[in-house]
């Protein structure tokens, strides 16, 4: 695909280029994130993990993917 057709999104503070209309599920699969160990925020709204195949990403979307780390 021509790079000009790609759109920019931000994932965990880093810019990424994706094809337009990519679903959130495809992005998570591409990033190889285990769904049962993460939570996802899209533009500061928590996303129900059961719905990610229905969400299509748009230019400028900001995604946060978090998990548990060691803490006190």
């Amino acid at each position, binding site marked *: 695909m021509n790079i000009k057709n790609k759109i920019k999104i931000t994932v965990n503070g880093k810019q990424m280029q994706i094809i337009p209309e990519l679903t959130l599920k495809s992005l998570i699969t591409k990033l190889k994130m285990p769904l049962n160990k993460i*939570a996802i925020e899209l533009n500061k709204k928590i996303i129900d993990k059961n719905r990610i195949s229905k969400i299509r990403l748009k230019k400028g979307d900001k995604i946060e*993917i978090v*998990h548990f*780390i*060691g803490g*006190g």
Partner: protein
Amino acid sequence: MIDKRFKIANKIFKSRLIVGTGKYKSFSECAKAIKTSGADIVTVAVRRVNISNKNKARLMDYIDPKKITYLPNTAGCFTAEDAIRTLRLAREIGGWKLVKLEVLGDKRNLFPEMIETLRSTELLTKEGFKVMVYCNDDPLMAKRLENAGAVAIMPLAAPIGSGLGIQNKVNIKIIRKQTKLPLIIDAGIGQASDASIAMELGCDGVLINTAIAKAKNPSQMAEAMKLAVISGRKSYLSGRINPNLFGSASTTNKGII
């Protein structure tokens, strides 16, 4: 004397020692220490996944949340909004409702920002969270947290990670007298005797991270803490003698030759 069960938000736990999972050299060292500590609750933090290193080990691969209760915290949060956002995300990962609220006010001394902590407790409780609250050792604030719906009061013994031990026993005792909620010392423990003292003051439990994680031998220190908590609890329940300024001979003078 039979001890009552250690219960938080209607859930019974076997161990009165809660262990933090931060600051260990590795996940395997952390998992080993948790095992020897006997803890059935561990605190965990919510952070961004490293998207550039997908194969990096994850805490959940080493500590099974089905076997040990994860207690998500709000470490690094300075406002109620930050704390709520963090705990909503934690809940989304796997449905956790029992949480540790920690809203800090100062990056150096890491003391809790109690106004924001109180506000967060109210908001989180309304949202259905069961909130265990890291707080200062002020009895009046502890009362307010209780009224706001906290399920456990967790005063500091000293600044987080300082290892200074219990600095204000009087306040802890006063809080103990006024509340029926689980009272758990959170922060400031340095060595096993500190954990025993906390339990002897009547606390229901102790939360320890740095004193175990940063010990030269974390696994052994974890065991020491486990024993200290058990020992301190038994000592508290056994009813100590009254302290006396003068001596009282253990051997009778009757029949002396």
